[in-house]
């Protein structure tokens, strides 16, 4: 009962964190599901977003302008990976790893050190974990919720435009896209840029929320993003068919992920084991569709009824 109370108390915090990571998960969805590329840049660009936002805000930059610049920094990180892949012919996973590694240095240079804190008492911020239980407009649940709603609406519109359709076609069938006059390389770069822009924006929110940016804050981000995408699809994929609703499902996946993590921590799991747990969850969720297919195939070979077919 006590654990249940603790969980309930931690719920607003988990949901806030889930929503912030939801922005990041939408970015992962764009590359992983729409472009069919597992983009590892995000581990670096997430921290880049946080670093850029914190440094700008500390230097007195307007909050929303800082967020916009963090988003643009993410776009540039994505462009680097996209060009490594398309212009230099490096496989996408390796291209992402190269950018991620180089971003580590870039992020250190941006902050001048490995960790930069930002105090909500001294600086005005958009979100902070201090406000999660306040019944006010600046509660992160509301702020991030509105940001997410706007982002999903804009993405829904964008992926219905000619340009957005071209990106979707590129992810769906490369040969067909080229035969229909689509510059597939350009669209891959564009998709990876957009994805990393969102990831950096998410990092910018998280840095304010937790009160610091850290070069390691994006470590394992891809796994959390994938977990959110997969959980969202597994639980809501059957009902949410529309593109906007799919993005909502991904956000829900992220929130559920953080509630589950909070639950296992509250129940006494060693926090050092969290990353292992996350990786295991993702591995199992990825394996299930494969196992299902294998199971179906073996059953096709031996149909029910016992009759042997020649």
């Amino acid at each position, binding site marked *: 009962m006590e654990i249940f109370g603790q969980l309930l108390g931690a719920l607003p915090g988990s949901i806030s964190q889930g929503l912030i990571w939801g922005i990041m998960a939408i970015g992962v969805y764009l590359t992983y599901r729409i472009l069919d590329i597992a983009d590892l840049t995000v581990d670096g660009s997430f921290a880049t977003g946080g670093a850029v936002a914190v440094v700008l805000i500390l230097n007195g930059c307007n909050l929303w302008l800082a967020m916009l610049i963090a988003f643009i920094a993410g776009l540039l990180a994505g462009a680097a990976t996209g060009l490594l892949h398309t212009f230099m012919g490096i496989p996408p996973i390796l291209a992402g790893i190269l950018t991620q590694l180089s971003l580590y240095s870039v992020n250190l240079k941006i902050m001048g050190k490995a960790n930069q804190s930002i105090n909500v008492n001294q600086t005005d911020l958009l979100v902070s974990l201090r406000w999660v239980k306040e019944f006010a407009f600046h509660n992160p649940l509301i702020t991030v919720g509105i940001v997410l709603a706007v982002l999903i609406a804009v993405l829904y519109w*964008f992926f*219905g*435009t*000619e*340009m*957005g*359709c*071209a990106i*979707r*076609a590129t*992810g*769906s*069938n490369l*040969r*067909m*896209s*080229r*035969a*229909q*006059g*689509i*510059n*597939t390389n350009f669209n891959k770069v564009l998709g990876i840029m957009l994805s990393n822009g969102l990831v950096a924006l998410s990092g910018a929110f998280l840095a304010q929320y937790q009160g610091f940016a850290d070069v390691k804050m994006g470590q394992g981000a891809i796994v959390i993003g994938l977990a959110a995408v997969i959980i969202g699809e597994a639980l809501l994929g059957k009902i949410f068919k529309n593109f906007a609703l799919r993005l909502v499902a991904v956000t829900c996946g992220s929130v559920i992920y953080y509630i589950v993590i909070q639950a296992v921590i509250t129940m006494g799991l060693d926090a050092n084991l969290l990353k292992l747990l996350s990786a295991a969850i993702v591995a199992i969720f990825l394996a299930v569709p494969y196992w299902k297919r294998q199971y179906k195939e073996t059953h096709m070979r031996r149909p029910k009824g016992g009759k042997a077919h020649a």
Partner: protein
Amino acid sequence: MLDIINVEKTFNPGTINEKKALCGINLHLDEGDFVTVIGGNGAGKSTMLNMIAGVYPVDCGSIVIDGTDVTRLPEFKRARYLGRVFQDPMTGTAPDMQIEENLALAARRGKCRLLRPGITAKERKEYKELLKVLDLGLEDRLTAKVGLLSGGQRQALTLLMATLSKPKLLLLDEHTAALDPKTAKKVLDITEEIVAKNNLMTVMITHNMADAIRVGNRLIMMHEGQIVVDVRGEEKKQLTIEQLLRMFEASSGSQFTSDKVMLSK
């Protein structure tokens, strides 16, 4: 007009897998020409089509479509002149997108894709009418994902996409080969209908000799990267399969061998 001038292509040059796919191909097509292409395995039929489409660069020679030299243009830029249907029904459409979205993508071939709507209400109506003509029941499934369609339906849709914004040249790469005989006939009928209606310049590779003779106004046979037989007009209409095989043997100096072609004779 299409001009293929002295085009050569060798795959894997300088390695043990070196393969001369095209040895100096020359071909001229006039407006409204419908040429069928037959030839054995590895004769260079598909390579010729892929060279026209720009899938790989040519070693030498040039390709001119309607006075524009496209030899150095990348595949996606040449697409504005070309409609293409592939052998594999999975290749020509985007499985994760709706039927109407696929058509809308094709309608914008050769145009700049900006932030205008990917599909408009007016287009939806047009596509419904176009799909009705196919008589495959697709007009009621405009928003279905293409991945759910059968091979024949996908080929018919690809054909419609290839000709939606009228191409200068239609390239058909054994587009009925992967279909069952009944569906293949239907797709071929639709092909003839669309080509005739739009008076499209067309190159069609086929493994069916009877089709190759019956369809179109010109027939070429390829062998080891060269065009060895080229008949047109009345002469082509009177042609029989036996005559065609004799012509092939006379000009190439070898027996015509292709299991696929012989079996479907």
